[in-house]
């Protein structure tokens, strides 16, 4: 009895720690503490699950935990900050796969028991089928998201005629098999369950294929909430509140983040998932215009003078900066400018980088203090008072076409109003278009000058030029 009470209390403690952990994650000053609280909650939950087990199966658990810890820890410590979105996608896929595997074991166990004459209750039956499907979709979808972001396969949307029809058929087949498995309560052959899970994996792949690289963060967030939901339903299956609560917290937060991101890009979720964004549209406009030619380029020395004698400079960092590993140099340049009395701010678009808040992480890695980073809504009125907007490897989030070209695929997306600044300097490798594959009229603006070259090399030479002044 005492043991029972202690275990239930431990589970409640774990739940409280998860919720408090998420609560403390809401401020940069306490976020680390929050993460540790949640991790402590997880440890308590694991101990509480092992405690009443008489050591049965511990060897198998140990094998799994050792493998999982080695793989998880190694990848977490090795991954570059730029690759964070795909890392999160993979961890998420692992969770979805685990949920599907748990349900599969439950199913096979029960099938054996069923032949021994023990009937299965409806709740377990229905929830294990649903959690297996959602978990499998999430696992396979996450792997494709990883492959796309890691550029192991093309980031462009992969589409073909009748794609949605085919996906619809697969979804229907899954639903049909699921209904069969649920209703017949295991009288059907095992292959029905197997085919159902296999089709769910196929659906996961096919549902992410037509989504372009630029939309991948939304997909990762959505898949995160899928896995949360799968885990919550596994909780129904095992009648375990802890899984229901933790899974649902994630499901709800993932849904919320997905919606927020959709808003930041002004695109309803439906459009992200089925729009095959960046497959065509923008490219046609560019081709018709014969590409962008009327751009002005400047030298490093000109830019250095502009920056050094400015009152206020706003740096607009993009993923291109991170790819070039230029964030440390950018910080150094900002330090030099501040020494000369220039006010330096960083303008962070909600979807800068490849995940909301990704750019903040990358700049934090370069020791840029987070109170120098400004959100879009706070910084946009500032551009009119700004002498130089320094755009480093950012493209689509500065594209004025989003404001005034109704035919542009990104029309309506809130952007950073860099074109309101007195001068715009764009650091860019070449005239290649952005991640979303859309031309940017900002570059043809008379106020805009281009500084071509590798972002890191350009910023480094800017530093020495500013120092030399």
């Amino acid at each position, binding site marked *: 009895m005492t043991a029972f009470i202690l275990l239930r209390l431990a589970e409640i403690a774990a739940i409280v720690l998860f919720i408090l952990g998420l609560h403390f994650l809401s401020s940069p000053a306490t*976020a680390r503490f929050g*993460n540790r609280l949640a991790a402590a909650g997880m440890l308590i939950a694991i101990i509480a699950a092992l405690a009443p087990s008489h050591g049965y199966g511990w060897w*198998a658990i140990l*094998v799994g935990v050792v493998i*999982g810890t080695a793989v998880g820890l190694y990848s977490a410590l090795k991954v570059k900050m730029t690759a964070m979105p795909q890392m999160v996608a993979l961890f*998420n896929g692992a969770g979805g796969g685990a949920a599907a595997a748990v349900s599969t074991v439950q199913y096979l166990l029960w099938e054996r028991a069923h032949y021994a004459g023990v009937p299965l209750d409806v709740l377990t039956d229905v929830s294990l089928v649903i959690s297996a499907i959602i978990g499998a979709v999430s696992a396979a979808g996450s792997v494709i998201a990883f492959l796309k972001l890691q550029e192991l396969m093309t980031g462009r949307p992969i589409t073909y005629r009748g794609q949605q029809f085919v996906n619809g058929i697969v979804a229907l087949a899954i639903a049909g098999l699921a209904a069969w498995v649920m209703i017949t309560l295991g009288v059907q052959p095992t292959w029905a369950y197997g085919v159902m899970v296999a089709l769910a994996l196929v659906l996961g792949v096919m549902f992410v294929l037509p989504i372009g690289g630029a939309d991948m963060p939304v997909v990762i967030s959505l898949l995160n909430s899928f896995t949360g939901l799968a885990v919550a339903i596994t*909780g129904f299956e095992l009648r375990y509140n802890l899984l229901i609560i933790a899974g649902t917290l994630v499901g709800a937060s993932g849904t919320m983040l997905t919606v927020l991101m959709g808003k930041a890009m002004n695109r309803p979720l439906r459009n992200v998932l089925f729009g095959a964004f960046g497959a065509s549209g923008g490219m046609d406009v560019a081709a018709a215009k014969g590409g962008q030619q009327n751009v002005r380029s400047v030298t490093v020395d000109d830019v250095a003078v502009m920056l050094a004698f400015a009152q206020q400079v706003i740096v607009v960092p993009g993923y291109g900066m991170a790819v070039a590993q230029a964030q440390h140099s950018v910080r150094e340049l900002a330090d030099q400018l501040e020494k000369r009395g220039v006010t330096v701010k960083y303008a962070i678009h909600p979807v800068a980088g490849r995940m909301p808040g990704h750019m903040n992480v990358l700049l934090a890695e370069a020791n840029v203090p987070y109170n120098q980073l400004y959100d879009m809504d706070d910084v946009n009125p500032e551009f009119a008072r700004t002498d130089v907007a320094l755009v480093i490897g950012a493209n689509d989030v500065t594209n004025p076409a989003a404001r005034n070209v109704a035919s542009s695929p990104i029309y309506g997306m809130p952007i950073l109003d860099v074109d309101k600044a007195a001068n715009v300097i764009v650091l860019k490798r070449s005239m290649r278009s952005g991640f979303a594959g859309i031309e940017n009229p900002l570059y043809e603006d008379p106020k805009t000058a281009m500084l071509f070259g590798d972002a890191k090399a350009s910023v480094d030479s800017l530093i020495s030029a500013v120092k030399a002044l």
Partner: protein
Amino acid sequence: MSELSIFFTLLTVFVLAIFVGFEVISKVPTTLHTPLMSATNAIHGIVLVGAIIVTVKLLDPGHALATPLLTTITIVAVALGTINVVGGFAVTERMLQMFKKREPAKK
């Protein structure tokens, strides 16, 4: 307790957790969205606990249920759950370590 009343107890918990989830997350600023996503990602690693429960049930010698296939699937489930938990929390910790406030120097 009947099957139906168990279901409704669990459903109540589920519905309440949805609201707690929305409530807690809505306060997180964009700055922290990446660490947040990775921390919530780690939290759904709680599925590891589900994997542990199933493994214990499977390998309980009293029931003699284990087959090599089933044992392999449970080990895979535990390993995947552990990757999710350990990787998720470790990567979040790494990111959050870097968030620093400007020291009140420069006056």
